[in-house]
């Protein structure tokens, strides 16, 4: 028996801040003190509070240590694990209120969260199947196989109101019923883990922290629609997720939870992993299946829908990682339990990857219908440096922006569509007054231009032309006609593209045109970038009354654009200046401004 558990995050976020070294150092230090039989060091998945990584939690006290360094390990072992004195200086400051340590679940970041898809992330070791089973893992599969008919499962999922978490929001139960209704010699279950939106890492964290939940759910889907083979399509850029999935599939096979005659029934099911090579379009369902088939990842027209004619031309159910992660919980706790959370049209919770200009970057799971204000001001801890909230970007390159006047919008499928954006897969990027909205639209469009597969013309050429128009605006050469032309082109691309990538690609432009048209006009008419981002419209000036003539900026300037004698005011030659901003950072007297 261990008397204490030390949980150290082994997710991608904390791994990159060297949590692997912490684990090794902790094990070594424990051995040195002879505590290795008393204290269990557990590598877990993501805790969500990535901004404070690497994270370490010590139980039974539940002490939440943040930003731990290897040098801190001897102190933690000596003081906390040996003598029982919590090392307060390393605790997450929110958990210490007036010098009293309080529960993590009471901190602003966690208090409003409701963890279903992430329930095991940061709690169990994802590489040990027994820990998943201890958290009622595979009990849902057992229940389905021994007590429920496929129709019962479909009813349960339909009644729960679960909708696709990958962005589309299609009712999962309905999707399954379509595939179940088909007669075919072979059917397939697929999992979309090709998470490609910039800044989104919900699916990665689920796979890294709780891979068995996805495996169990896919087996349940297989039983429900009558499939005996599944594929998980995961991007190759997720090495930790792939490794843990492989381990998990291996352990599930060893324990007879994948393979033939699971739980002694007639049901057999097995899984294979397919690695995506990094094409964004492969996150689109028809492209994903084409890619699994071994062909170039390009979309195909729908209908026929995958439920009728999917992978290898057979009926297929394809769901996103987060959707699957909810399934075992719904089976075990019942449809009513799940339907009791969220809004009338969006049940349950949604995981968001919170990023950008926000204090608590990381992963949050909140009931559908939580307002954006709660996420930004309470869970996210507000905007750093006292800046003002300007907009939130949701849905990545397919989504749009939520401006400050809609800060009280309820985060669910329909409310976001009503204001011209979408919930998407869950990327939530917060922007402050220093972000130029035209530049943001350009950033996302550049991404889609790059990632357009090229099969259909509206997307391939349309996004490129749209990007060029944006470029014209941000460089100060745009006209008012260009803005109208952009809008027209946006609708053309939306209406005529073959797949979701093209159909949604203009959304960032349309959404910023809708809420921040004044910024576009400022770029065109006043030749100014209000946020001071677009380099083409910026000029750097030296304020004569502040310049001391120290020559620091002139020495730093990479192109020799600054001239002036010692102790005399310097000047910037606009024709040479490349607007890199190096002089601003160098000047000790705040004498250089950009406007």
């Amino acid at each position, binding site marked *: *028996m*261990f*008397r*204490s*558990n030390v*949980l150290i995050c082994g997710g991608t976020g904390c791994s990159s801040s060297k949590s692997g070294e912490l684990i090794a150092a902790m094990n070594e230090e424990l051995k040195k003190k002879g505590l290795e039989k*008393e204290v*269990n060091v557990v590598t877990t998945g993501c805790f969500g509070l990535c901004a404070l990584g690497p994270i370490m939690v010590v*139980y*039974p*006290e*539940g002490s939440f240590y943040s930003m731990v360094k290897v040098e801190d390990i001897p102190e933690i072992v000596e003081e906390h694990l*040996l*003598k*029982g*004195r919590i090392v307060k200086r390393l605790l997450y400051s929110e958990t210490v209120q007036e010098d009293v340590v309080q*529960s993590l*679940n009471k901190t602003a970041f966690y208090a409003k969260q409701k963890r279903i898809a992430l329930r095991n992330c940061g*709690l*169990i070791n994802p590489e040990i199947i*027994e*820990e998943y*089973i*201890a*958290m*009622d*893992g*595979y*009990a849902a599969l*057992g229940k389905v196989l*021994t007590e429920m008919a496929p129709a019962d499962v479909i009813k349960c999922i339909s009644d729960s109101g679960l909708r696709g978490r990958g962005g589309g929001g299609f009712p999962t139960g309905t999707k399954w019923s379509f595939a179940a209704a088909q007669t075919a010699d072979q059917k397939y279950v697929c999992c979309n883990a090709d998470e490609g939106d910039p800044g989104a890492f919900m699916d990665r964290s689920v796979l890294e922290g709780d891979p068995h939940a996805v495996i169990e759910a896919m087996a349940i889907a297989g039983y429900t629609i009558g499939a005996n083979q599944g594929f998980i399509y995961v991007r190759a850029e997720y090495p930790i997720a792939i490794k843990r999935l492989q381990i998990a599939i291996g352990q599930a096979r060893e*324990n*007879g*939870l994948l393979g033939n*005659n*699971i*739980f*002694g029934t007639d049901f057999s099911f097995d899984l294979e992993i397919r690695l995506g090579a990094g094409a964004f379009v492969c996150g689109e369902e028809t492209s994903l299946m084409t890619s699994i088939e071994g062909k170039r990842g390009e979309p195909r027209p729908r209908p026929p829908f995958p439920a009728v004619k999917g992978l290898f031309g057979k009926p297929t159910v394809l769901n996103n990682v987060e959707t699957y992660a909810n399934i075992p919980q719904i089976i075990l706790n019942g449809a009513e339990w799940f339907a009791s959370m969220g809004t009338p049209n969006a049940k349950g919770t949604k995981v968001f990857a919170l990023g950008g200009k926000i204090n608590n970057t990381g992963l949050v799971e909140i009931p559908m219908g939580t307002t954006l204000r709660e996420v930004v001001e309470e869970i996210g801890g507000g905007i750093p440096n006292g800046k003002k909230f300007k907009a939130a970007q949701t849905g990545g390159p397919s989504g749009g922006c939520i401006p400050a006047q809609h800060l009280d919008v309820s985060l669910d499928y329909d409310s976001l569509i009503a204001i011209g954006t979408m919930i998407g897969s869950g990327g939530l990027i917060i922007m402050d007054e220093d972000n130029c909205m035209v530049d943001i639209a350009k950033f996302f469009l550049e991404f889609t231009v790059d990632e357009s597969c090229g099969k259909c013309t509206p997307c391939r050429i349309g996004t490129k032309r749209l990007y060029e128009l944006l470029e014209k605006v941000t460089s100060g050469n745009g006209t008012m006609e260009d803005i109208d032309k952009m809008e027209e082109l946006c609708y053309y691309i939306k209406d005529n593209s073959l797949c979701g990538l093209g159909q949604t690609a203009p959304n960032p432009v349309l959404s910023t045109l809708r809420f921040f048209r004044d910024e576009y006009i400022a770029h065109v008419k006043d030749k100014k970038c209000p946020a001071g981002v677009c380099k083409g419209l910026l000029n750097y000036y030296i304020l004569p009354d502040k310049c001391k003539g120290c020559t620091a900026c002139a020495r730093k300037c990479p192109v020799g654009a600054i001239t002036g004698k010692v102790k005399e005011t310097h000047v910037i030659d606009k024709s040479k200046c490349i607007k890199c901003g190096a002089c601003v950072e160098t000047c000790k007297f705040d004498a250089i401004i950009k406007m």
Partner: protein
Amino acid sequence: MKTLAELQAIRDKARKEINLREENPDAIRVMVGMATCGIAAGARPVLNALVEETGKRNLTNVTVTQTGCIGLCQNEPVVEVLVPGQDKVTYINVDAEKAIRIVNDHIVNGNVVSEYTIGTAIK
């Protein structure tokens, strides 16, 4: 995995190791004084005995943890048992054997082992 019973068996076994990670405000807290004085007087074997015994008896409602010096250094090892809603009971001069008895009599059966408590033993 051929039966649900097999799954249940794995679950119950693994559950013990996980239990520690859940916050349980109703848990009985057993605290062992583990400052320098406590450790010198042999608090470590006491702590281990408490953990082993609660594990053996599947006492999921008990957390064994350490605490600092409470100022009774001459009476270490000190073990405090805190049952929610009841007064704290302090045992002194505990060793591994006494610890096992505290678990069995006090925690399992609810009978305070009065001969080890500070009130009795100090006289």
